[in-house]
C-alpha cells in the first residue's frame, strides 16, 4: 500500500468551523495512478498538503509508503515528489537553473536521473535558457513535473497539474503520467476535470470534504442508476425549467450544448418528446446517452444532498 488514509479530518478558521475534510479514508496501491476528482473547494489541496506533511490533520492518521505523516515527516519528504496546484518554481531562474537547483536540494544531479525526465525534458530543452516565469502554461507544468521527478520519487503527488493548461498540453501531460506509471511509480493526482478521470486506474470523487465514491472509472459508470437522456430544443433555458418539473426526471442540468436529464421509470423517449411539445418547444431532439463521470458525480452529489452531512 503506497498511501493509506484513515479517518482524517481537518478544519480551518478561528472556530474550526470550516470543514475542509470530514473523516476521509482512502488507500492507494503501489504503482497505481489514482485520481482525486472534485470541484474547487472540495478539500483536494488540503488532502495533498496533509499527505505531503505540510499540514497536520486535526484527527485521524495517514501513511505514505508506510511512514506516518505526523511522526516520520522527514522520511516522507525525501521520497515523494510534490507539484503544488500553483506554479511554485523560481520565476526569475531559467529552466535549467530551476532543475539544477531542485536536483541539488534533493542531493542528486540532473544527469543521475536524466532517464526518467528525458521524455519530458526534451520538450522544454529548447527553452532551457529562458526564465521560468516567461514560459507558457503547459511548459511551466512540464518543468514543474521535471523538478518534482528529479530525485526519482516513490510516490508522486500532483495537485491539479492541468488546471489552466490548454487541451493539447493536457493530453500530452496525461500521456507522460501513463509513461511514469509504467516505470512503477505511484501517482496521486487531483483534477477538477471529470474527463480526465477515465485516464486513472481508480478514482475517488470528493465533494465538500467527504469522499462520495472510490472505484475504477468503469465500475463507477456501471453503477449509474436510471437512464440518461440528452435533450436539445430551441429554448434551452425554458426547457431546463420544464424538464425539472417533469415527474420522471430526477435531475436535469446543462451539459455542454445540451441538457442531461436523469430519468427513472421511463422507457420511451417519445414521452419526453411529447411533454416538451405540449410546452411549445420547437426542434426537440431527445436521445439516450451514455453517462460520463460528471453525470455520476452529479448523481452522487444529489444523493449526498438528500441525506445531509451531520454537523458536528
Amino acid at each position, binding site marked *: 500500500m503506497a498511501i493509506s488514509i484513515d479517518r482524517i479530518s481537518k478544519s480551518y478558521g478561528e472556530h474550526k468551523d470550516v470543514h475542509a475534510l470530514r473523516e476521509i479514508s482512502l488507500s492507494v496501491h503501489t504503482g497505481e495512478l489514482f485520481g482525486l476528482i472534485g470541484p474547487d473547494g472540495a478539500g483536494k489541496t488540503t488532502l495533498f498538503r496533509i499527505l*505531503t506533511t*505540510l499540514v497536520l490533520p486535526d484527527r485521524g492518521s495517514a501513511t505514505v509508503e508506510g511512514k506516518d505523516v505526523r511522526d516520520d515527516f522527514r522520511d516522507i*519528504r525525501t521520497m*515523494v515528489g510534490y507539484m503544488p496546484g500553483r506554479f511554485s518554481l523560481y520565476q526569475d531562474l531559467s529552466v535549467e537553473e530551476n532543475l539544477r537547483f531542485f536536483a541539488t*536540494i534533493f542531493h542528486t544531479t540532473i544527469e543521475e536521473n536524466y532517464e526518467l525526465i528525458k521524455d519530458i525534458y526534451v520538450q522544454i530543452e529548447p527553452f532551457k535558457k529562458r526564465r521560468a516565469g516567461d514560459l507558457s502554461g503547459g511548459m511551466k507544468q512540464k518543468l514543474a513535473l521535471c*523538478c518534482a521527478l528529479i530525485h526519482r520519487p516513490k510516490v508522486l503527488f500532483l495537485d491539479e497539474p492541468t488546471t489552466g493548461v490548454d487541451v493539447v498540453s493536457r493530453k500530452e501531460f496525461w500521456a507522460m503520467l501513463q509513461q511514469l506509471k509504467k516505470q512503477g511509480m505511484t501517482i496521486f493526482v487531483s483534477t477538477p476535470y471529470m474527463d480526465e478521470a477515465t485516464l486513472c486506474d481508480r478514482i475517488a470523487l470528493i465533494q465538500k470534504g467527504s469522499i462520495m465514491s472510490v472505484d475504477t472509472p468503469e465500475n463507477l459508470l456501471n453503477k449509474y442508476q436510471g437512464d440518461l437522456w440528452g435533450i436539445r430544443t430551441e429554448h434551452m433555458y425554458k426547457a431546463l425549467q420544464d424538464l425539472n418539473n417533469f415527474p420522471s426526471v430526477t435531475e436535469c442540468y446543462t451539459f455542454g450544448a445540451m441538457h442531461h436529464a436523469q430519468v427513472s421509470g421511463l422507457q420511451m423517449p417519445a414521452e419526453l418528446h411529447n411533454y416538451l411539445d405540449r410546452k411549445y418547444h420547437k426542434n426537440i431532439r431527445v436521445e439516450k446517452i451514455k453517462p460520463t463521470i460528471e453525470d455520476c458525480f452529479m448523481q452522487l452529489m444529489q444523493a449526498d444532498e438528500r441525506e445531509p452531512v451531520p454537523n458536528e
Partner: protein
Amino acid sequence: MLHILRDRRTLLVIFGMPIAQILIFGFALSNEVKNTRIGILDMARDEQSARYIQQIEESEYFETTHELSTTKEIDQLLRAGKVQMVLAIPSTFSEDLAHSRQTQVQVVTDGTNPNVATTLENYTANITRDFQQTLMSATELPYTIKVSTRMLYNPQMKGEYNFVPGVIALVLMLICTMMTSVSIVKEKELGNMEILLVSPMNPLTIVVSKAIPYIFMGLLILTIILVLSVTILHVPIHGSLLLLYVVSLIFIFSALALGLLISSFTNSQQMAMMISLMGLLLPTVMFSGFMFPIESMPWPLQLISNLIPAKWYFYSIQGIMIKGLGIGAIIKEIAILTFFAIFFIGLSVKKFQIRLA
C-alpha cells in the same frame, strides 16, 4: 472598507501607531535635556563655590553623579560615558571674585552628540548668569563669572559624529531585518516554500541560506557608509576597525534573527514590511539615543530603550569611532548585544515552522 476592517492586525497598526507616536513624541521624546549626569570638580571648596554648585544642582537639568578630585578624571569619566558634562571650578574661584570681581569656570562636554553638548553649555551659562545676579543684588557690585567651554572628541561640533553611527545602526537594522523577513515571506507567498519544505533539506537550512546573503550585504553596506563618512564627511575612526566589524556582525546576527522571527508569523510581504518598519525602525530611531537623548526620557521609556539592540550598538560604535574606545570600555554593550543575538536566534529557531500552518 469592509476589507480594511476585517484585517484586524493592520487595523491595530493603523490606529495604534499614531496614538503611540503622538504620546511618545509629545511627552517623552524631546531635544530638551533633563537630569543630565554631570561631574563636578570643585577645586575651590569654599562657601562661594558651594553656593554656586547648589544653584547648579537645584536646576532640573543637572544631576551630579560624580565628584572629581583631579583634572585627569574628566577625560576618564566622559570617555566611559558616565557623565555628559564636567563643571570645573578653579581653586581661585572665590578669591578672584572678591579681588577682581571676575572669575571663570570651565565646562567640558562630550561632543559626540553636539546638539546635547551645546544645550548643556547654554544651560550652564544661564544658571551662572543667575548666580551672578544674586551676587550683584547682595553687594551691588558688578561681578562677572566667565564660562569657558570645551567640547571633547568633537571640537568642530560636527553633527556627523552623532548621525553617522546612528545611520549605520538604522541601515543595518533595516537591511537585515526587513530584507530577510520580506524575502522569506515572498517564498511563502509565491509557493516556493511549499516545494522546498517537501524536500530532504532541513527547513532551517533553507531559511538560513536565505539569510546568509544579507550578512554580506550588511557588511558591504557598513563598509560603504564607513568609506563615505571618512572620505566625504571626515568622520574619524579612532578605534579598532576590527572591533567595529565584530560588533557590527553581532548586531547583524540579531537583526537577521529578528527578520526570521517576523517571517515565521507573517504570510504576506506587506505585513512583514509593516512590522519591520513600524515595529523596529521607529523604536530604533526613537530609542537608540542618537536623535533624542535617552537621559531626558521618563524612566519607563528609559527601561524600554534598554530592550532595543540598536541602542547598545549605537553606543558601542560611537564609542569606537569617535572616542576611540577599546574592547574593555564597551564590553558591557558587546555582552548585551551578544545576548540579544543569541536570544533572537534561539527564539526564531523555536518559532520556526516546519509546516505550512
